[in-house]
């Protein structure tokens, strides 16, 4: 039965995704609840990244830029003008869409390494701009969000509402990814990712397809950026827009499985808790937890380049066959 569920519309994965909201209620304290929030948030973010880079097989190592746009847009609107982050989130999405249209319009036609490098370049330029335009962004000092709990401020005292918020964010991104997978856009995107010339010969408008997916990916990432800012309540260019954040999107997606709707979620469910626990327990040696993460990533790339998700499916299939075999005897 599990096999059937796995092959049909990812039902088991849907059940895991939907049921995961129970977890924070059983966690003993704020520390573990915080890990749950980060896991949901990064699952949503990695799925957003995957929407373009995973399906189209073109790495963006600059998605921290959209995370930053989302975080800064809502925060600056809130801190300076008192505009609710819920509205700021939409504004950030709009700004990200414009940025993605400009960046995508100039770079999406680039192939392979050129595209990858251009995404890094844009993210770095945005970071430098954020640091240097001190009048607007307070530069490298960063921006504090005053603690005024309330739904309209997207600030709560307990971690549970944050867990709900990030979980809903994750579910929405998943829904969009699954819907897109079965749409004309999704099929075209995967075709372009596999072979752009062949797809074009079959009548796929590749540049339009890529641009739409790229903008969608950027906007969803930006929404996550707003949630991130409201949760951490302090943003600063070098931590929000760091290359390390950009790499984290890829790390989670690759670990679970790039180009599958649920892969990045699985990646985050496995790696974000490990990463945070390592950081907590190995904090005496600085660098150790990133070192271990790097080794995990290298091991996955060398031995399981498709990610863990296909492996999990095989494992379930094996279990089912075994149980059938024993019953037969």
């Amino acid at each position, binding site marked *: 039965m599990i096999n059937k569920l796995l092959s049909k519309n990812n039902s088991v994965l849907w059940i895991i995704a939907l049921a995961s909201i129970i977890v924070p209620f059983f966690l003993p304290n704020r520390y573990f609840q915080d890990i749950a929030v980060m896991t949901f948030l990064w699952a949503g973010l990695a799925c957003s990244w995957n929407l373009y880079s995973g399906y189209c*097989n*073109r*790495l963006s*190592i600059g998605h921290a830029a959209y995370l930053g746009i989302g975080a800064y847009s809502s925060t600056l609107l809130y801190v300076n003008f008192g505009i609710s982050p819920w509205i700021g989130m939409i504004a950030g999405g709009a700004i990200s869409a414009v940025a993605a249209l400009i960046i995508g319009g*100039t*770079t999406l036609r*680039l192939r*392979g*390494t*050129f595209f*990858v*490098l*251009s995404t*890094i*370049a*844009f993210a*770095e*330029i945005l970071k*430098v*701009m954020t*640091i*240097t335009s001190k009048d607007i962004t307070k530069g490298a000092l960063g921006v504090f969000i005053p603690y005024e709990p309330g739904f309209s401020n997207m600030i709560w005292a307990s971690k549970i509402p944050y867990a709900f918020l990030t979980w809903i964010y994750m579910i929405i991104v998943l829904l969009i990814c699954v819907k897109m997978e079965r749409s004309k856009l999704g099929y075209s995107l995967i075709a372009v990712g596999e072979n752009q010339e062949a797809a074009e010969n079959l009548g796929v408008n590749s540049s339009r397809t890529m641009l739409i997916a790229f903008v969608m990916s950027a906007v969803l990432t930006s929404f996550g950026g707003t949630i991130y800012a409201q949760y951490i309540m302090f943003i600063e260019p070098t931590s929000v827009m760091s*290359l*390390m954040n950009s*790499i984290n999107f*890829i*790390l989670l997606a*690759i670990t679970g499985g*790039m180009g599958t709707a649920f892969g990045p979620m699985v990646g985050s469910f496995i790696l974000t808790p490990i990463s945070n626990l390592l950081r907590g327990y190995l904090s005496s*040696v*600085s*660098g*150790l937890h*990133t*070192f271990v*993460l*790097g*080794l995990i*990533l*290298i091991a996955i*790339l*060398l031995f399981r*380049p498709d990610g863990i998700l296909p492996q999990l499916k095989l494992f379930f299939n094996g279990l089912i066959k075994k149980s059938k075999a024993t019953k037969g005897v």
Partner: protein
Amino acid sequence: MEQILQVFISGIFSGGVYALVSVGLALIFGIIGLVNFAHGEYLMLAMYFAYWMYNIIGLDPYQSLLINLAVMAIIGYLTYKIIMERVLEADHSIQIILTLALSMVLQNLALMLWKADYRNIRIDMTTDTTHIGFLTLSTPRVVAFVIAIGASVLLYMFLQKTYTGAAMRAVAQNGKAAQLMGINLKRTYGLAFTIGISLVGLAGLLLSPIYPAFPLVGSNFSTLAFIVVVIGGLTSIPGAIMGGLLIGVVESFAGYFAGPAYQQAAYFLLFILVLIFKPNGLFGRS
């Protein structure tokens, strides 16, 4: 006017080291087709090695040059054998993420072993200046420039004039055809990777009297080298040299007119302009 010339010349001189870093990257990319995002981390390792040689044994960077080269060559070869050889046939994105992960591992290894402190080598020459006409230049930079350009030119001659060099160029043009002509593909790849890493190690050594060693020192140089290589036409060695000098000058002028904060932004902007208007690089063949 004199000031402008001074800014220009100091740009050229820092560009020499950028050229050497980039030449190694261009060689690896040109021959193996591998994008090495961990390139700068080898520069960092070489800087630390130079620092420890100076602090423990008392050899200044110029005295430990040959040992440093040898150690970096061994590290390069081991990296190739243990990791890179397994992904030669893999997807482009797998290779990119793998080298990114490698850079994460090396950076944090350095952080664990040597902490985040800045490690400076203070030899007499560090503060020396050389005067050429009305120009004043820091002596270690002049030495670095001369050795860097010398090494880059030597590599170019090696590729053009020797049998092994010709074999490497053949592999760069068409690996399968070269293999059919009896060239050992994997050995050539190994050699290219080893030379590339040795060169970036040499650059690290030359920088060590001017620049402090710290775990993240490589990341700036990695991105810089990528930009240089793209501007230079990806696989071309002379292109990488010219690109390195150009970036040095751009950085120098941006620092002079707009302030140090804009140096990085300036060459990223140049990079994007090149990508949009001359995607094959300023010095690349179309």
